[in-house]
C-alpha cells in the first residue's frame, strides 16, 4: 500500500533527523511504522499469542479475530466519516444511513432477487452511492447546523423505514441474515474468520488510501478551505456546493462499502446500524481519536469498538454485580460510560488522542494558547 511512501514524503523535512548516527537511523526506522504495523496485522491470524485483558483468547482464535476485524472495520468507517467532519467541516448526523444502505441493499439483492454475490455487492454499493447523491444534494442546500439536522432527519426516516419492515423485506427489529449459500464459501463460517479479518483489513487499507489521496488532491485543498472559511472559497470564485457534495458522496460510498463488509462479518443486516446512535458512536470515535488527523479517526474507531465490547463484558461480569448500587448502576450501562468519557475527552483532550503526544511534549508552553485560556473564559 502507499502508506509507507506517503509517510516518507510527509516527514521529508523532519527537523528531528540528525545528520548521522543512531538517532537518524531511529527516525528513519520510525517512519516505517505503518508498514510494520500492516505486516503485523496481516500475519496476526497465524499468531497464538495470548493478550490477557485485551482479548479473551489468543490472537488467532476466531473470537479474537472477529473482534479485531470489527475494530478494523470501525476504524475504517470512522476514517471515512472524518472526510466530512475533519476535512470538510460538515457535521453529518446521517452517516449510518449509507452504511446501512450498503448492508441492507446488498442483502436485499441476494435474498429477494437471488442474484450472485458479486453482482449484489456492486448493485448495493451503487444504491448507497445514489442515495448519497440524492440526499446529499438536498441536505447541502442548508449550511451549518441546519445541515446536521437535515441529515439526521433523513437518516431517521431510513431507520423508521427499516424498522417498519415494508413488505417483509428488511425484517424489522430482527434484521435479516444473509443467505449463506449465495455468499462466497470462503467468507462463511467460523473456520473462515481469518478471511473475513483480511477483508476488514483490506477495507481499512483502502479507506486510508482513498482518504489520504483525496485529501492531498486539489479537491482536498478546497475542502480544507471550506472547512476554514467557506465564504473565502466562494470569493475565490469556486462554488463550495459541488465540492461539499463530492466529499459527501465519497464518504457515503466508503460507508456503503463498509456496510458490505459488515454484512459479511456479521452474516446479516441489523437495524442497530440504521439508528442515530450508530452515527453518534462514529462521531465519538472520530473526536476521541482526533478529528482531521491522519491516524486519529482510525485509532479512535479501533479503541471505541474494543472498549465497547469489553465494557459490555465488564457490565455483565460478577465484579460489577457485587458493587454497591451507586457504582453498579452507572457501570452496568456501557452507553453511560461512553457518554461520560466522550464529554471528558471533548473538555480535557482537545484534538483527541492524536494531539496527545504533542500536548504532552509541549506541556511547559502550550502551543498557540488554544487550550488553557479557553477552558476558563
Amino acid at each position, binding site marked *: 500500500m502507499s502508506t509507507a511512501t506517503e509517510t516518507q514524503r510527509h516527514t521529508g523535512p523532519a527537523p528531528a533527523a540528525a545528520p548521522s548516527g543512531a538517532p537518524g537511523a531511529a527516525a528513519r526506522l520510525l517512519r516505517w511504522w505503518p508498514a510494520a504495523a500492516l505486516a503485523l496485522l496481516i500475519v496476526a491470524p497465524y499468531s497464538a499469542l495470548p493478550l490477557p485483558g485485551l482479548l479473551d483468547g489468543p490472537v488467532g482464535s476466531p473470537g479474537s479475530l472477529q473482534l479485531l476485524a470489527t475494530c478494523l472495520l470501525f476504524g475504517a468507517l470512522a476514517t471515512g466519516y472524518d472526510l466530512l467532519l475533519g476535512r470538510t467541516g460538515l*457535521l453529518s448526523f446521517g452517516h449510518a444511513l449509507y452504511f446501512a444502505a450498503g448492508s441492507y441493499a446488498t442483502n436485499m439483492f441476494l435474498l429477494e432477487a437471488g442474484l450472485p454475490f458479486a453482482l449484489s455487492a456492486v448493485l448495493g454499493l451503487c444504491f448507497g452511492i445514489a442515495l448519497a447523491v440524492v440526499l446529499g444534494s*438536498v*441536505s447541502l*442546500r*442548508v*449550511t*451549518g*447546523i*441546519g*445541515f*446536521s*439536522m*437535515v441529515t*439526521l*432527519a*433523513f437518516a*431517521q*426516516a431510513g431507520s*423508521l*423505514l427499516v424498522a*417498519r419492515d415494508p413488505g417483509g423485506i428488511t425484517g424489522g427489529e430482527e434484521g435479516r441474515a444473509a443467505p449463506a449459500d449465495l455468499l462466497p464459501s470462503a467468507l462463511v463460517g467460523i473456520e473462515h474468520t481469518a478471511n473475513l479479518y483480511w477483508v476488514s483489513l483490506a477495507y481499512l487499507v483502502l479507506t486510508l488510501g482513498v482518504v489520504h489521496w483525496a485529501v492531498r488532491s486539489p479537491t482536498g485543498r478546497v475542502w480544507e478551505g471550506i472547512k476554514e472559511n467557506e465564504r473565502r472559497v466562494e470569493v475565490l470564485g469556486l462554488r463550495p456546493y459541488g465540492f461539499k457534495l463530492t466529499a459527501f458522496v465519497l464518504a457515503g460510498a466508503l460507508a456503503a462499502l463498509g456496510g458490505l463488509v459488515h454484512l459479511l462479518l456479521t452474516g446479516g443486516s441489523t437495524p442497530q446500524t440504521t439508528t*442515530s*446512535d450508530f452515527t*453518534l458512536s462514529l*462521531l*465519538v470515535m472520530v*473526536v476521541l481519536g482526533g478529528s482531521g488527523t491522519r491516524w486519529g479517526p482510525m485509532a479512535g474507531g479501533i479503541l471505541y469498538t474494543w472498549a465497547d465490547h469489553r465494557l459490555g463484558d465488564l457490565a455483565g461480569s460478577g465484579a460489577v454485580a457485587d458493587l454497591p448500587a451507586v457504582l453498579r*448502576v*452507572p457501570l*452496568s*450501562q*456501557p*452507553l*453511560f460510560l*461512553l*457518554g*461520560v*468519557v*466522550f*464529554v471528558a475527552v*471533548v*473538555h480535557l483532550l*482537545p484534538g483527541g488522542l492524536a494531539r496527545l503526544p504533542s500536548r504532552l511534549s509541549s506541556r511547559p508552553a502550550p502551543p498557540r494558547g488554544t487550550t488553557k485560556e*479557553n*477552558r*476558563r*473564559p
Partner: protein
Amino acid sequence: MSTIVLLTMTGLGLGALYFLIASGLSLIFGLMDVLNFAHGALLSIGAYGTWWAASGNLPGAGSGGAGFVLAVLFGTAVGTLAAVVLELAVVRPLYTRPREQVLATVGVGLAVPALLSGIWGPDALTFPGPRALSGTFGLLGAQVPVNRLVLIAAAVLVLLALRLFLGRTRHGLVVRAGVEDRAMVTALGIDVRRAFTLVFAIGGAAAALGGALGGLYFGSVDPRQGTSLLIFAFVVVVTGGMGSVTGAAVASVVIGLVQQFANYYTAAGLGDLAVVVLLAALLLVRPSGLTGRLA
C-alpha cells in the same frame, strides 16, 4: 367528520409536545449556535421526575388533583435545574468552541438516557396521571381525550409567556438581540453568558414540562422517549427557521398535523416519513425555513 376532529386534536396535542421541546432548542440555537443534543435528555429528566413524584415518593404529590400539579412542578423544576447544571458544567467551559459544545451535549445525550435506564430499567413505566385527565369529552361528534386539551393549553401558555418575556422584559431584549447579533451585544458591554444560562433554564423548563405532559399523552415514560421526540423537534426547528419561537410554533402545528393525518390515511408509520419528505420539499423551495431565517 368525527375522525377529522379527533385527528386534528391529536395532531395539535403532538404539535404542542414538539413545540415545548423545539422552542427551547430554537432559542439556544439562535443565541449560542449550539444544537443541544441533550435537550431530549432534559425532557426525559422532567418525565421521570414527574413520574417519581406522582408515584408517591414526594410528600404531598400524587396522581390526582393538586398532588399531580405539584408533581408536574417538581418534574419541571428538576429539568430546569438539570439544564442550568448542563450549561454551567458542560457547555460554558467550551464557550469559544461552538462545535465542541455540540459534541459535549451529544455525550450528555448518550449518558443520561443510559443512566435513567440503569436506574429505572429500560422498559416503559406506566404514568400515574389524574383520573380527571384520562377521560374523553365530546367535540363535534368526536370523543377527544382530555389530555390533548391540557397539552395544547400548556403549549399556548408557554408560547404567550415566551413572547411576553422576549418582547416586554429587559432580559428578553438581551436574548433577542443576542439571537440577532451576539458580537454586537457583547461589544455593548452586556454579559451574554448570563443570557445563555437563562435561555438554557427556560429551554430546560419547557422541555421538562413537555416530558411531564408527554407522560400524560403516551400514558408511559421510557428512557428513549426524549431522544425520539428530539429528532422531530429538530425537524420543527429547521422547518420553522432557526432561532424563531413563532416559527417553531407554526412548524410544530404543521408537523404534528401532517404526521397524524398521514399516519391515519396511509399505512401506519408513514407519517414519520411524510414529515421528512415535507422537510425535504420545503428545503428545496426555501432553504431558510418558513420564517426565512438562515442558520
